């Protein structure tokens, strides 16, 4: 891990010193334990604040389009997939972008830890152990115990698009069943599913952290903000919230790169991922498409072919 | 029980008149339904009200009538959003909601005994009309010195209140100068942008107040002209536009620094604005 950090800093320093980029978008240590925070390094003197570990949970691709000038970005597998889609959708100019690829073993699910230890007062990460000092109790975890749920099913931890690769790559274990979580959800009865989403959506406060943290939610005017026609009211009941969340999930169909940033960003802990995973499974089954893997294969719903399945148009 | 400032009074739209040839500005004449409502709606030139088109929403507009015109109030509104569109399409006789009057007003007391130069551009002429009509009223005319109105639009068809402007031209109690941006057939008055015309025709700054309303770019270029003519920031007033919702200084969006445009404004002197951040 330390050698990765050294190499990231070295690369960033070199890029800035040689004037190849104006800014390096990376992570620095956050103000809270087990929390990294995005940072924008513009001078070679500042590169030593860059870090890399299992707390680097944001998808930095979200910042690329809004950051002026030539930029380098630290990209995990999912970040690089988001960049790929952004390039395909002409949101980012590839030549303005220098991608520092790092393979990612996953990020920590803080909520899982806090559910046991209470609010985290302090923590340290060593190679395999995470030691947490909590308000309720202190506890030691192995990383796999507290790996974010998104990362547990990640099949692309290695960047798919990069200008330089730092550190080694990660081998992806074969998954017996893809989308096991979605299949579980599909196997529930209508009423069970309805009850689940009603409960989840009742927590949503419509702060739009999920939308704003998403690298692929870049619409100039989001449908929820549109007032003619007005798709949604300002209501915060579970029906209105579900309409927002499903609308968003459907707009990401064939585009979502499963970084899980939306679910992690949600201050209310809404299971947003349950919706996007279902859409991703459908897109995979109908179009055999996974977004942001190669430059040639465009997002499934951005292209048309005469043999596209139409299962969603005709009720069979 | 005290008045609930969020509940509008109901008023009747008795006239929906298209003002401009581009059909983008209409003047709505609203009638009070009873004496009590009218008595509670005591206003001064420069104030605004929140107008409700039920089914569409509510938006703030400057009051174009003067308190010297009883029984009704008028608003001249450009078609820009949901509420203004609905109002433009509204049939005469329809009931609308009105909350107000809101905000402060032109300092008519301070202006007493002074000359006034009123400078307006485009459809931002509404509360300026209110002020001119107020001062022209026989009860008030003697309180003020010379009144000069400099009013411009892109072309003749975009001037508001054309009939009234014609009356003012013939009225010795007011000096009206109209201008359009580019020459047009049949137009024999001034041609040129407001700042230029102001430089040519504005009266001396001695004992004079200037009130300027119009698009931001017009205001931006008119202010230096006024300064050159000797107007101090204390002698120049303007009325600001801002996105507003409550109109009560509560909902938090129309602030410039610590001031809320809806409650502490919309009328500010340039001297006051110089003390505030330039975030408007």
């Amino acid at each position, binding site marked *: 891990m330390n050698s990765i950090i050294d190499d990231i800093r070295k690369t960033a320093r070199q890029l800035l010193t040689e004037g190849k980029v104006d800014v390096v978008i990376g992570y620095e240590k956050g*103000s*809270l334990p087990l929390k990294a925070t995005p940072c924008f390094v513009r001078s070679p003197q500042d590169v030593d604040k860059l870090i890399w570990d299992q707390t680097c949970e944001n998808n930095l691709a979200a910042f690329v389009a809004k950051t002026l000038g030539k930029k380098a970005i630290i990209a995990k597998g999912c970040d690089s997939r988001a960049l790929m889609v952004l390039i395909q959708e002409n949101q980012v100019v590839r030549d303005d972008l220098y991608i520092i690829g790092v393979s990612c073993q996953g990020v920590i699910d803080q909520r899982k830890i806090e559910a046991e230890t209470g609010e985290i007062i302090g923590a340290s990460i060593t190679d395999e152990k995470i030691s947490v000092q909590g308000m309720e109790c202190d506890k030691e975890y192995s990383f796999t115990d507290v790996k974010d749920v998104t990362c547990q099913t990640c099949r692309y931890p290695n960047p798919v698009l990069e200008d330089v690769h730092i550190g080694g790559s990660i081998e992806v274990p074969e998954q017996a069943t893809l989308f096991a979580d979605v299949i579980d959800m599909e196997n529930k009865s209508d009423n069970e599913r309805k009850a689940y989403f009603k409960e989840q959506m009742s*927590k949503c406060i419509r702060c739009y952290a999920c939308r704003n943290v998403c690298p692929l939610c870049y619409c100039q005017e989001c449908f929820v903000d549109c007032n003619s026609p007005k798709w949604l009211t300002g209501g915060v009941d579970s029906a209105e919230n579900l309409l927002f969340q499903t609308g968003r999930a459907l707009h990401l169909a064939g585009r979502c790169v499963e970084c899980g940033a939306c679910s992690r960003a949600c201050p*209310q802990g809404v299971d947003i991922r349950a919706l996007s995973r279902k859409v991703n499974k459908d897109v995979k089954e109908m179009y055999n498409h996974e977004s942001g893997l190669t430059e040639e294969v465009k997002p499934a719903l951005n292209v048309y072919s005469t043999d596209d399945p139409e299962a969603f148009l005709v009720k069979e | 029980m005290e008045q609930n400032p969020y509940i509008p009074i109901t008023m009747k739209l008795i006239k929906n008149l298209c003002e401009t040839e581009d059909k983008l500005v209409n003047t709505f004449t609203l009638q009070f339904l009873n004496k009590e409502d009218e008595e509670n709606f005591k206003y001064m030139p420069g104030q605004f009200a929140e107008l*409700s088109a039920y089914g569409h929403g509510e938006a703030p507009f400057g009051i174009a009538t003067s308190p010297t015109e009883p029984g009704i109030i008028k608003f001249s509104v450009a078609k820009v959003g949901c509420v203004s569109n609905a109002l433009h399409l509204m049939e005469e006789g329809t*009931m609308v909601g009105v909350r107000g009057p809101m905000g402060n007003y032109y300092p008519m007391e301070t202006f007493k005994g002074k000359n006034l130069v009123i400078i307006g551009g485009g459809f931002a002429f509404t509360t300026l009309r209110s002020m001119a009509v107020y001062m022209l009223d026989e009860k008030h005319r003697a309180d003020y010195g010379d009144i000069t109105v400099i009013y411009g639009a892109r072309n003749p068809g975009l001037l508001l209140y054309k009939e009234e402007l014609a009356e003012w031209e013939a009225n010795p109690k007011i000096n009206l100068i109209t201008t359009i941006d580019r020459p047009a057939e049949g137009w024999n008055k001034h041609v040129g942008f407001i700042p230029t015309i102001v430089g040519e025709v504005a009266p001396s700054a001695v004992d004079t107040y200037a009130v300027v309303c119009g698009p931001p770019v017009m205001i931006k270029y008119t202010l230096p002209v006024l300064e050159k003519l000797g107007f101090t920031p204390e002698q120049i007033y303007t009325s600001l536009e*801002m996105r507003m919702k*409550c109109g009560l*200084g509560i909902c938090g969006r129309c602030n410039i620094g610590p001031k809320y445009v809806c409650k502490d404004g919309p009328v500010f002197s340039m001297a006051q604005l110089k003390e505030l951040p330039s975030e408007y």
Partner: protein
Amino acid sequence: MKISKEKFGQAFDALVAEYQIIAPVITDGDVNYKAVKSFSEVKQNYLNSKLPPKSFLFPQHEKLLSYKKEGKDVTVKNELKVEKTILFGIRPCDAKSMLLLDKVFKNDEYRDPYYYERRDNSIIIGIACNKIAPTCFCSSMGISPASSKGSDIFLVDLGNSYHVEIITEKGKALTAGLQELAELTAEEQALVNTIKSAETPSKVDVSTITAKLDKMFDHPYWDTLHEKCLSCNACSFSCPTCHCFDISEEVHKNEGSRVRTWDGCMAPLFTLHGSGHNPRDKKKARWRQRMLHKFNYFVHNNGDIACVGCGRCIKSCPVNMDIRQAIDGVNKAELVVD
């Protein structure tokens, strides 16, 4: 004076018939304020709620009026409805926030009846914090983890009993019937003293921030502060003092209602004019507004800082924007001498 939790619970349950009682409960793993029917539902030993209790005075979504259109006519109905309410287990930061909200919803000209009718019909039972979270910094905001400011009745949790202080006339009236109050033991008194003298370990210095911000509108500090912000409203919606709102229309055929909903200064649409002009279209301007509103404009208008140090914005921010660091940054910013 103290009362056993058992006796307290009986008195609490007896009030359910007359009052809507809002208290901290666990919902899906989080502590939040909800209406309860019995003291047994109330969560004990919690740090603080995920969302502040402000929604019981200023709901996220509330009908102001409803109307019905018939032809060209319209009938309008005031939708203000208020229940007598007890807000139980309110932490000192949130109790203070209500004093700040009081200043917002009433000014020299207007009084907001929706807020004030609720406020006037609410009784605040505050409770001291026995535990202090690492993100708490209320001790820097004119209160402390055991401040009774803003409470009508103030409790200290002693395990099996509460130490009770009656702060206001409202509190006195509510507790008039309470029997069985007992003296504290020396040991309990010592515990009360310890809790009452506690301070948050995390602190910020706001002693000169208002005066400094007077001179900082054009400071380059704002150029980078906002950079990682996502412009969401997680901070505003979890803040007990944020109070900005939107008013919109909800229509169904010829009937509808006018509603107000929470809004926030972080969203770019917040200040967008009908003309397309937007005075705060940049994130930089919006973060400056957030800081200036809380630590400067609010002080000029209302004599206090609009932050109570609850730390919720720090916990809820998806990119770890930390208002304590933002405050430190202002303190450290160099002013250009002209």
